[in-house]
């Protein structure tokens, strides 16, 4: 696949790195010579120095032959114009990142808009992030929530600790609600797909997959946590405001702390149901006074990593149990987990993951990566004549380390059991570790006679 990436900020670099690794042809454009030099030194891709929205540069990058153009510079207008120009020059698809609130109906659609002004996909990572945080707050203790198949299926991650239930029980002995499967377990940094005899231990991270309605009940099997009724949000930026609005809509009692008085006032004006505090989120007295320690969920979503980290840590100290932060630098996520913060999300990683979903939209759609790429969740179309067709699952020899999470038969979603049968034309959502990927794919390829 021929991909042109405009803008080599952190998102651009991450996209370039992944694409190079997957052996796509990549041309990277940036106006900053240093960024170009960095990519030249570290990646086997072609680079062009210049203004990404200029027709000349795009022509030089041969966008007319491109399968995908990704515009992720720091300026919305450049991204939109580059994506539009690329389309009019003959690129097959284009995707642009925007950060401002003025573009289309992004706020209602949850961060992604298709076909806006003729650009195939326009997305706002901050809104996507707010949506993901809202889902986590509404779950029963999940630290990660991933939507699949346009919200019809979800994957959630649960971090088990000493207070979790059903530790040490074999998975076969646990009765899960219909339509939920244990997809993977991460133990000591290693991801595996469990069998019926495996048990769960404290410290494990469990990935559950299934229908969203059923997942809450499945989460209850392990945790005592309920959806957050009282939420504290530190930071009233785009993420904070949208998160607060989403949670308030679903009936939670939301307290938002914002340092800037004007901003605080504006949020209160537009969202009257939210309690808005004017103050510093890292002020222990303030947190104590408004009993943040007793709240169900705390999200620190300011633009500064230090403030987020300190706010979350202080809240933990006065008793908050579930905390979430956003981290600009993806490298710091592990440290956040070590410090006891359940959820740490990097907006840039989220953005690049989102971009990569569109890259992979061909024969094999990768929908999400787990644990930094150790496993992938993907969508596979079962083609006529593939070995996987017409055989009950229990007789199918699935490679170790892979799992069929769901079968989409038209509009109907089936969470497979041993007796389920895949028909030609079905779409299968599967999870596979990197090692078992090829063999799983082979099951769904047409047999060559």
């Amino acid at each position: 696949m021929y991909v042109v990436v405009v803008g080599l900020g952190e998102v651009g670099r991450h996209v370039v790195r992944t694409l190079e690794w997957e052996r796509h042809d990549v041309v990277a454009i940036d106006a900053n010579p240093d960024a170009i030099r960095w990519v030249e030194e570290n990646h086997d891709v072609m680079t062009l120095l210049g203004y990404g929205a200029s027709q000349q540069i795009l022509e030089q990058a041969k966008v007319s032959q491109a399968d995908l153009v990704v515009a992720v510079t720091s300026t919305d207008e450049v991204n939109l114009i580059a994506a539009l120009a690329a389309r009019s020059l003959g690129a097959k698809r284009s995707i642009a990142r925007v950060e401002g609130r003025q573009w289309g109906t992004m706020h209602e659609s949850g961060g992604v808009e298709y076909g806006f002004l003729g650009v195939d996909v326009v997305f706002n990572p901050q809104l996507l992030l707010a949506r993901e945080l809202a889902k986590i707050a509404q779950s029963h203790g999940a630290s990660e929530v991933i939507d699949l198949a346009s919200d019809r299926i979800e994957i959630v991650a649960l971090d088990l600790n000493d207070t979790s239930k059903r530790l040490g029980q074999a998975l076969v002995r646990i009765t899960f609600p219909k339509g939920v499967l244990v997809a993977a377990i991460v133990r000591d940094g290693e991801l595996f797909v469990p069998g019926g005899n495996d048990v769960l231990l404290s410290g494990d991270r469990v990935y559950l997959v299934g229908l969203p309605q059923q997942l809450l009940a499945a989460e209850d099997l392990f945790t005592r946590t309920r959806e957050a009724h009282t939420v504290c949000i530190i930071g009233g930026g785009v993420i904070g405001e949208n998160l607060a609005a989403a949670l308030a809509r679903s009936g939670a009692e939301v307290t938002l702390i914002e340092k800037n008085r004007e901003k605080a006032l504006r949020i209160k004006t537009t969202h009257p149901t939210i309690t808005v505090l004017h103050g510093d989120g890292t002020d222990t007295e303030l947190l104590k006074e408004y009993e943040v320690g007793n709240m169900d969920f705390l999200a620190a979503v300011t633009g500064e990593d230090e403030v987020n980290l300190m706010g979350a840590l202080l809240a933990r100290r006065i008793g908050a149990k579930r905390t979430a932060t956003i981290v600009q630098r993806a490298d710091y996520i592990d440290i956040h987990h070590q410090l006891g913060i359940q959820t740490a999300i990097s907006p840039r990683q989220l953005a690049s993951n989102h971009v990569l979903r569109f890259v992979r939209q061909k024969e094999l759609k990768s929908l999400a990566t787990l644990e930094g790429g150790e496993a992938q969740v993907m969508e596979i179309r079962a083609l006529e004549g593939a070995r996987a067709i017409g055989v009950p699952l229990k007789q199918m020899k699935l490679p170790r380390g892979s799992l069929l999470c769901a079968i989409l038969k038209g509009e109907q979603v089936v969470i497979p059991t041993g007796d389920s049968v895949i028909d030609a034309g079905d779409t299968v959502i599967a999870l596979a570790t990197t090692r078992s990927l090829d063999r799983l794919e082979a099951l769904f390829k047409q047999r060559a006679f």
Partner: protein
Amino acid sequence: MVPTHRQVARPTGFVALGLAAGMAACALVGGVYNTFGHSLGPKDDGSVGEMLLSAAITTGIGGLLLWWGAPAKGVKMRRVEATLTTTLVWALTGFCGALPFMIDTRMSLPDAYFEAISGFTTTGATVVSEIEASLSRPVLLWRSLMQWLGGMGIVVLFIAIFPSLGVSGKHMFRTEVPGHSSEGLRPKITETSLVLWRLYAFFTAVQIAVMMALFSWWVDKTRGVHWSENLFDAVCHSFTTMSTGGFSTKDNSIGHFDSGLVDVVVSVFMLIAGVNFSLYYGALATRRHTLTNRGFLREGLSWLSDTSQVFRRSVEFRAYAVVIVLFWALLTVATFEVHGNLWRSARHSLFMVSTTITSTGFGTHDYAQYPSSGMSLVLVLMFVGGMSGSTAGGIKVSRVVLLAENTWNQLRKSIRPNVVQVTRLGREIVSEDTLNAVSTFFFIFIACLGAGTLVITYTDGVPVPTAFGAMLTCLSNMGPGPFYDYFPEAKDNFAGYTGTAKFIFSFAMVLGRLEFFTVLALLLPELWRR
């Protein structure tokens, strides 16, 4: 910063295996000719077996390196390793390439090493006085094949064949491709390398066909010679023309054929090889025109103008063309007396200009009778060299253009210090860093030339102009040419020099081929300190 040796061993081992395959191919060709009743050369039989023995030894060396080396997959090579790999590959090819000369032709190690390095670096200088009488057919083919492999680059070929190198391949590519900047033609470096090698192979094939046609119908000297012998000469000479190498299968080089047509054809292909290969790619990649019956002529013309625009737009190409035409005219005038008439003078001058500017080193006649004005024209051309990204040696036209432009700017600055100036190469603005690198390159070139001359006068006691000429011809990868004839018994070759001098010359050739930085950077002490 100490490079990981095992990481370096593996690619080097692969290259050795490739060389072994090349030797085996030469042995096979020799065997086929032998079977159909052609002479194998001075020793007649035996050469095939000896070539195979060399191939076996090379396979052994390659196998050992592969066995010892760490798998390259997944591990990212840093620039240090890439640089070391390229240098080691070139040192090793010299040794492996020397095996046939040692085993078959019974040369001494310095002689054989010199001959092999001269082959791979496409210098074309030789230690063999009587080529036809002392080299067997497989060895003759091996000499030409070495030059052909070294022309576009062994490492570039390696990158083209192994697609999984990623950014390490990019670093290695930069260490071998000549010129002040080596840009990628395609998003992946593997594809860029493949494109270059394909173009190179294509031009070689065209030349073989043209030479074959000439030999079959127009050249008197090849009448009555069996077609398969002509094919052998056509292939060998095409290999050494496109690589701007200059090894010949004949004692008198191209002069053997004594034909104006051959001279012109070889000149044209040498000049083609001296052009930046990315220009050919650019010309091929221009908009394709649909050739309809109605506007056939018009479409054809517009295609031609689009294609030629790629060349016309390149400042370096224009400079290259101007230098060629100018020196051709000057040399024609300067050597008019020697040749007697304008046609002969023009014909030989064109050949001389092409062979010198592209650093090929073929000869058509005795240049010993040249007046000194003609000699100095040749001397200047030896410095200039071909274009960046070509197979030619020398300083490269683009560097000369940049040096001239920079000098002009500096001169102006010395009296008008407030003038803001930008150095350009066509539309492209050249950064300070690049200018610095170009100036440094020029300094290193001159410094190595001086130091080398000094050392050779010590080791061999030859006159300064001779040592200077010999050193220059090695550094610019020119090979045979005027200036270094000194030993009466070894005319036009390096046989008379001592073993030490031959190793120094070999080192100079590798320096010139890899353009100094790659090799000299490895001498930095901080690289080897733990």
